[in-house]
């Protein structure tokens, strides 16, 4: 039970009720795996949305990632790690990937379908906090046309982090025989790829600001002497199959520092590739947080076979650093949580509906005007389960109803478990909150600021950090509390 985002249908993103077994009317009718919604409350969904042109290695990367997770759960130190497959379609696709890997075969190109994809649904626990992975494997053609990506990958709306999977080797190679220069250009220009993403997000009515991207340099094994640092990094992957016996226990924390250092090196390398440099500039212009990593799903070249789409490798897949994009996705999520600011508003009670006010204007409105950055700010109403706004939106102008119950615990308790290191709360109320004292001695003591215009001592004494607002100047202390460096 978490007050986090609504659990949505993994196919069409329609909100789901707790008891839903199929996607409801108005949605797509998709039959959900047994206990899907309840399971997602324990293991929140993590959409894995990879964007990239055909032949740049998206499918191989996704397959290598899932196969690596599967293998890690079998390692001796991972007694409590599990990978659960939630439906038959996922089982069939995973088996296909296993068969190809076991037979040293490369995967065929993903077939283009101008429709919403059904993701692979896998539940992972014991390696990192439990998550339901929604793995969307869509064809590169989905991004050739700027107007199709929203239909081919509507999950982009829910994916706070997207992966731009690109192979510099393929960006820089000469056109294939028979390929027209314009078609060749269209399938490589990352400006169009970004355009497809931006258009899709606009059509899906989702904001870009505050989201994250991982620029994945795929087929890193082909970098050769152009980037010896990156090659060395790939070769030293502690999770690779050959290192299974000697490998140390996997943890996000142990990976973090290495990943950050390597991101700088990969950024330095891709800065020399014109198209990628342009893509990064476009992402940052939209205030999208960008991280970089390098992977190799096969570790070697695939050799074309006799039939179209058939290819083999001369030895087992040598997966290198293929978990890095997912680890970055989790790290970026943690960063967003740490920067998240929750504004909890008391809409008033028996004395009348309305926010605490100053000079006839509500405190939320006055606060919003003074905040330098809004991207992490999200508003909640005291006593209500759902968020009143999406991150970055202004608080509702006027409350419509009085406070149903003056309780905070159902919000704070799950946040404590989900984001132990970050997140701050500003509670705006002129009343007593019934359960606030329950959190007085815990981590919230320094992370929650009570803001009030009430002179009643019992209101001010209910929490250690209180700001009594008498003039608009007093709001400066609240904005300082909310500033990122506080």
């Amino acid at each position, binding site marked *: *039970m978490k007050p986090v985002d609504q659990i949505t249908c993994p196919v069409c993103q329609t909100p789901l009720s707790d008891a839903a077994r199929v996607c409801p009317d108005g949605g797509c009718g998709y039959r959900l795996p047994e206990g899907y919604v309840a399971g997602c409350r324990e293991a929140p969904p993590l959409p894995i949305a990879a964007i990239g042109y055909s032949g740049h290695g998206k499918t191989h990367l996704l397959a290598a990632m899932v196969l690596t997770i599967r293998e890690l759960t079998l390692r001796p130190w991972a007694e409590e790690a599990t990978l659960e497959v939630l439906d038959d379609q996922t089982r069939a696709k995973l088996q296909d990937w296993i068969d190809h890997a076991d037979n040293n075969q490369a995967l065929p190109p993903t077939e283009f379908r101008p429709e919403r994809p059904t993701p692979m649904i896998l539940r992972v626990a014991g390696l990192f906090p439990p998550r339901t992975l929604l793995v969307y494997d869509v064809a590169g053609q989905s991004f050739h046309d700027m107007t199709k990506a929203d239909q081919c990958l509507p999950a982009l709306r829910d994916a706070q982090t997207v992966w731009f999977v690109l192979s510099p080797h393929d960006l820089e190679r000469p056109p294939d025989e028979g390929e027209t220069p314009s078609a060749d250009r269209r399938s490589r220009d990352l400006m169009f790829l970004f355009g497809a993403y931006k258009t899709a997000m606009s059509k899906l009515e989702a904001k870009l600001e505050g989201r994250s991207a991982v620029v994945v340099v795929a087929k890193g094994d082909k970098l050769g002497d152009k980037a010896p640092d990156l090659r060395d990094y790939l070769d030293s992957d502690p999770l690779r199959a050959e290192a299974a016996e000697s490998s140390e226990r996997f943890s996000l924390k142990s990976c973090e520092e290495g990943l950050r250092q390597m991101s700088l090196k990969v950024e330095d390398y891709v800065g020399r590739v014109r198209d990628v440099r342009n893509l990064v500039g476009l992402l940052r212009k939209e205030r999208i947080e960008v991280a970089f990593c390098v992977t190799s799903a096969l570790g070697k070249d695939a050799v074309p076979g006799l039939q179209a789409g058939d290819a083999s490798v001369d030895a087992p897949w040598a997966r290198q650093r293929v978990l890095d994009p997912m680890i970055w996705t989790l790290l970026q999520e943690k960063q967003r949580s740490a920067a998240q600011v929750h504004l909890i508003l008391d809409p008033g009670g028996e004395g009348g509906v309305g926010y605490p006010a100053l000079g006839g204007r509500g405190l939320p409105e006055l606060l919003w005007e003074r905040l330098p950055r809004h991207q992490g700010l999200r508003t909640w109403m005291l006593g*209500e389960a759902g968020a009143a706004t999406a991150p970055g939106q202004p608080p509702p102008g006027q409350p419509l109803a009085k*406070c149903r119950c003056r309780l905070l615990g*159902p919000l704070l*308790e799950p946040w404590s478990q989900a984001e132990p290191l970050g997140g701050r709360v500003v509670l705006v109320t002129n009343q007593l909150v019934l359960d606030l004292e*329950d959190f*007085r001695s*815990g981590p919230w003591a320094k992370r929650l600021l009570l803001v009030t215009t009430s002179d009643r001592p019992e209101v001010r004494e209910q929490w250690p950090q209180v700001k009594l607002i008498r003039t608009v100047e007093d709001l400066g202390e609240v904005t300082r509390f909310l500033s990122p460096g506080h």
Partner: protein
Amino acid sequence: MNHNTLELDRANFPMIWVESLQAYLHWIPVTKIQFEYFLWESSFSRLDQEWLDRVYKLNPRVTPKKIGKGNYWRAFLTGVAPVEAEQYATWCGEAADGLQYSLPTAEEWQKAYREMQGRPCHPLEQDQAAWGRLSDRVQTLLTQLRLSLSAPKHLADQMLFDGGVLEWVSTAAHADADSGWGGYGQTNRSFEFTGMYLNRLFPVKSVPKGPDDNAGRAPYNGFRLLRRERA
């Protein structure tokens, strides 16, 4: 079929397997914190702040850290009507596929009580699988509650069948309660003592019918629920 000793309800409070009922039963009577989760999520508009103020006035709330020998009963939700307890049961069941929650019948309560009298105390904190899933607040509440009890002899004592609240049970087949509801259990004498006996049904002739009805709303009436697989 194997059953874990402990499971959690929708508000993440523990329930224990009762062999004689083939069902899980709340470890302790339902607390205010549990019910607050329900109030916060439910769509029953009449269960609002006003209702909460009225009910909490009968048996005021205590923060988990301040639970002690002289006030631990304030952790439990009392003053509640059976129909409100049933609404909580429905809410718990909404999130659990194939499971249903219900108030016990008088016979079920007695069976559970007898079984727990025959079982030794269970060190909840050492049950890592369940304990680790509890929030800090719930852990604090359960720890403080344990420290408040003086030397429980068996599991029934630890689960506060005695010394907790007078628990609502349905008595449809019981002759001495014409309301269809009765009470089992015995409260702590410092809380309320109205001649209730642990082993005998306390017939309740007048029960509140809903959120607006205060008749029969007593400070010592609480409840715990059974959870079993849906038939």
